[in-house]
C-alpha cells in the first residue's frame, strides 16, 4: 500500500529564536528544562510517521501534548521548525505559499473541534466554501455541496443556518464541507470531543461507515483512547510533544510501551479492542464418523469439556463431555456421536469484538469462529473471553506472537491490575 503522507523528523518550537532550543532538544534535554532556560515552548519533537492510503491514523494525547500543533503542521497552518511533511512528494513545510494553497484546495481538508462553521452562511454555502474558494460556478458548487450533504444525511437542511442545527448535525456539516472538495487526506482535529457521548458514538460509527466507501486517508486527533482504539488502523500516543508508542489498537492494549500508556490502557474497554480471532484456539474437531471413545479421548487430551464435530468441511454440531460420557454409560460403546450432537451452537465471525461474544459465552459452550464460507477457523473457550478482558494473555490462546513475552507480561500487568480493578 502506498503511503499518502510521510512525516519525517518534525519539530515545532514556539518562540524566537528556535535554533538554540532545537539544539538542546537534540542533545536530549527535556521540554521543561528548555522552557525554564530559554523560555521557548516545545510543541512537537521528533515526530515521524507514514499514513497509508485509505487508512485512519489516530493521534491520541492529552491537552498540551502537541497533537493539535502536529495536525496543523500537516496542512501548513503552523510551520514546522524543522523536518519534512510530504504529501504525494510535495513538502508542505517548505513549499511556496501558492503551492501550499493549491494543496489545501485540492488535497487536504480539515474538520475542527468546535465545527468552525461560518455563522453568516447557510449550510449549503458552508459546505460549498472550499469549492467557492477554488472559483467554481454557483450552480455547480451547490450541486456538489448538496451531494456532500447527502452523504452525511443532511441534504434537507441545506438552506438553514448553522445556529439552527444541533452540535452533532453541525459537525456532520463540518465533515461534509471537508468532503465537498474531494480531498484525499482528511485532518480531523478532535472532531467529536465537543459532542455528548451518545452522539459521539453515533458519529464514530458513521465515520467508519463512510470510510468504507470514501477510502480517505484520515489523520484523526483525539484525547479519548477508547475513540482512538475504535477508529484507528494505527494509533500514535503522544506525550510532551513526542510519540510514546505507535501501533495497532491490539498492540497498544496488549503491550503498552511504558507506564504512561499502561495507565491509559488500564481503564479502556478491552471488549471493543480485541476480536474473536485474538482469543481463539486452533480449530480442534472430530469428524462425525468418529466413535464416542475417540471423541472422549480427544477431549481429555485437549483438556476441554466440549468438542466441535465436523461433517467433512461443514460444522455438524458440538458434543459435550458430560452428554457423551453419559450416553456411553447407558448405551455401551457402540453409539455414534450423532445421538448426543447439539446442533444449536454459538458462532462468531473472526472480526467480531469480544463485547459481542459475552452473550454467546454465557451458553457455556465453546464458540465456533467461522469464516465467510462458514468453515470452522477457531474455537473460543468462554473462559478465554474473560481472561482477555481481565488483561491476562493465555499462553495457549492464539498468541503465537511471543508467547514468552506474554507470560512475563501476565505476571507484571496481572499484579498491576489486581489493585485498581
Amino acid at each position, binding site marked *: 500500500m502506498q503511503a499518502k503522507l510521510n512525516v519525517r523528523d518534525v519539530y515545532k518550537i514556539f518562540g524566537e529564536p528556535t535554533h538554540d532550543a532545537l539544539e538542546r532538544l537534540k542533545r536530549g534535554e527535556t521540554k521543561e528544562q528548555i522552557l525554564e532556560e530559554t523560555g521557548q515552548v516545545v510543541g512537537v519533537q521528533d515526530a515521524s510517521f507514514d499514513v497509508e492510503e485509505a487508512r485512519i491514523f489516530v493521534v491520541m494525547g492529552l491537552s498540551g501534548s502537541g497533537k493539535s500543533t502536529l495536525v496543523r503542521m500537516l496542512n501548513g497552518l503552523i510551520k514546522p521548525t524543522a523536518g519534512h511533511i510530504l504529501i504525494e512528494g510535495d513538502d508542505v513545510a517548505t513549499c511556496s505559499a501558492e503551492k501550499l494553497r493549491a494543496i489545501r484546495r485540492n488535497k487536504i*481538508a480539515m474538520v475542527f473541534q468546535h465545527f*468552525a462553521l*461560518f*455563522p*453568516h452562511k447557510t449550510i449549503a454555502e458552508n459546505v460549498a466554501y472550499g469549492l467557492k*474558494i477554488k472559483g467554481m460556478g454557483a450552480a455547480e458548487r451547490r450541486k456538489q455541496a448538496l451531494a456532500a450533504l447527502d452523504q452525511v444525511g443532511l441534504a434537507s437542511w441545506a438552506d*438553514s443556518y448553522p445556529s*439552527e442545527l444541533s452540535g452533532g448535525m453541525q459537525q456532520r456539516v463540518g465533515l461534509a464541507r471537508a468532503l465537498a472538495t474531494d480531498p484525499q487526506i482528511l485532518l480531523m482535529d478532535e472532531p467529536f470531543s465537543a459532542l455528548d457521548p451518545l452522539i459521539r458514538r453515533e458519529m464514530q460509527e458513521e465515520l467508519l461507515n463512510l470510510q468504507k466507501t470514501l477510502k480517505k486517508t484520515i489523520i484523526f486527533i483525539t484525547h479519548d483512547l477508547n475513540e482512538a482504539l475504535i477508529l484507528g488502523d494505527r494509533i500514535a500516543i503522544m506525550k510532551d510533544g513526542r510519540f510514546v508508542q505507535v501501533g495497532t489498537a491490539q498492540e497498544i492494549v496488549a503491550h503498552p510501551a511504558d507506564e504512561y500508556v499502561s495507565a491509559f490502557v488500564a481503564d479502556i474497554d478491552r471488549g471493543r479492542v480485541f476480536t474473536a480471532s485474538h482469543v481463539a484456539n486452533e480449530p480442534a474437531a472430530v469428524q462425525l464418523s468418529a466413535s464416542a471413545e475417540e471423541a472422549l479421548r480427544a477431549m481429555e487430551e485437549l483438556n476441554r469439556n466440549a468438542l466441535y464435530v465436523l461433517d467433512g468441511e461443514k460444522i455438524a454440531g458440538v458434543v459435550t463431555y458430560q452428554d457423551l460420557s453419559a450416553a456411553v454409560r447407558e448405551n455401551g460403546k457402540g453409539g455414534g456421536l450423532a445421538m448426543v450432537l447439539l446442533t444449536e451452537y454459538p458462532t462468531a465471525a473472526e472480526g467480531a469484538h469480544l463485547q459481542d461474544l459475552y452473550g454467546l459465552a454465557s451458553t457455556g459452550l465453546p464458540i465456533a469462529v467461522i469464516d465467510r464460507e462458514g468453515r470452522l477457523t477457531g474455537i473460543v473457550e468462554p473462559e478465554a473471553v474473560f481472561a482477555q478482558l481481565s488483561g491476562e494473555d493465555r499462553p495457549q490462546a492464539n498468541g503465537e506472537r511471543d508467547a514468552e513475552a506474554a507470560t512475563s507480561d501476565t505476571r507484571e500487568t496481572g499484579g498491576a491490575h489486581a489493585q485498581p480493578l
Partner: protein
Amino acid sequence: MLSPSDILLIPFDDWVNTLVRDILVPNFRPFFRALQVPVTSVLNALDAFLQFVPMLVTTAVLALIAWRTVGRSMALFTLIALVFIDMIGLWPETMTTLSMILTSVLFCTIIGIPLGILAAGSNKLWAVTRPILDIMQTIPSFVYLVPIVMLFGVGMVPGIIATIIFALPPIIRLTNLGIRNVRGDLIEAAEAFGSTRWQILWEVQFPLALRTIMAGLNQTLMLSLSMVVIAALIGAGGLGLVVYTGLGRLDVGGATAGGVGIVLLAIILDRITQALGEQSGVRTPSLRQTLVSLFRARRAPTGETRETGS
C-alpha cells in the same frame, strides 16, 4: 514658592504658531487646497441633488427606507418630522445639513474602514493609530478650527473637514474591533480550505464584523451631526448656521427651530442606521426564523433516527 516655570518657560504657543503660520501655511497651502477638491465635488453634487428633488419625494423616500429597515411607526415618525421641518421653513437648510453629513460620513467610511481593517491585521499599526484616535476624540474641536481655517479657508468644505476629523475615530475603532473579534477557528477554517488573504477578508472577516462596523458607522454619523453647529462657526451653512445666527442675535426662537431640526434629523438617521446594523453581520434569527426553527426542532427527532438508521 519655586515653580519650574521660574527656571524655564517653554514658549509652546510660539512654536505652534511658527509651525502653522510660517511652515505649513506658506508651503503646504496648495496641497491642502487640493485635498478639498474631492470633498467639494461630492458635497456640491449631493447638495444640488437634495435641493433639486421636491420635498415630498425626499420625504416619501426616507419614510419608505425607515419603513423597510425599522418599521411602520418609524416611517410615520419620519413622515411627520420631515413635514414639520418643512412647515417651520427649514427644509433647504435641513437638506444642506443632510448633504454635509452624508459627505462627511462617506469620507469617514472610505478612510476609516480600510484603516480599521489594516489596523486589525497589524498590532504595530494599531499601536500607532490608537493614540492618534485618542487625541482626535479628546482634543476640543475649537483647537483645530483655527488651523483648518488657515489651511483650507472658510466655508462648507473646511467645516466638513473639521467634522471628518471629529467623527472618524469610532468607525476605525469599531472596524478594528469587529475584525479582531472574528473567531480564530473560523479564520483557521477559511485558511485550511486554501483561501487567499482577500478571500478570508471578504468571505469571513468582513461579513462577520459588519454588525460592529455598522455600529461604528452609526457613531460616526451621530458625531457628524453634533459638529453641525461648530462647523457653522467657520462658515458651513445649513441648520448649524440657523442655530449660530440665532445665538448671535439672541433669537431664542430661531435657534430653537434650528436645534429641533437637528434633533429630528438625528433621530431619523440614528434609527435607520441602527436598524441596518442589526440586520447585517451575525444573523439574529428573526421571528420567522425562530418559528421555522421551532417547527424543525419538533420534526428533528424523527429525522435523526431516520438518518442514523441508514
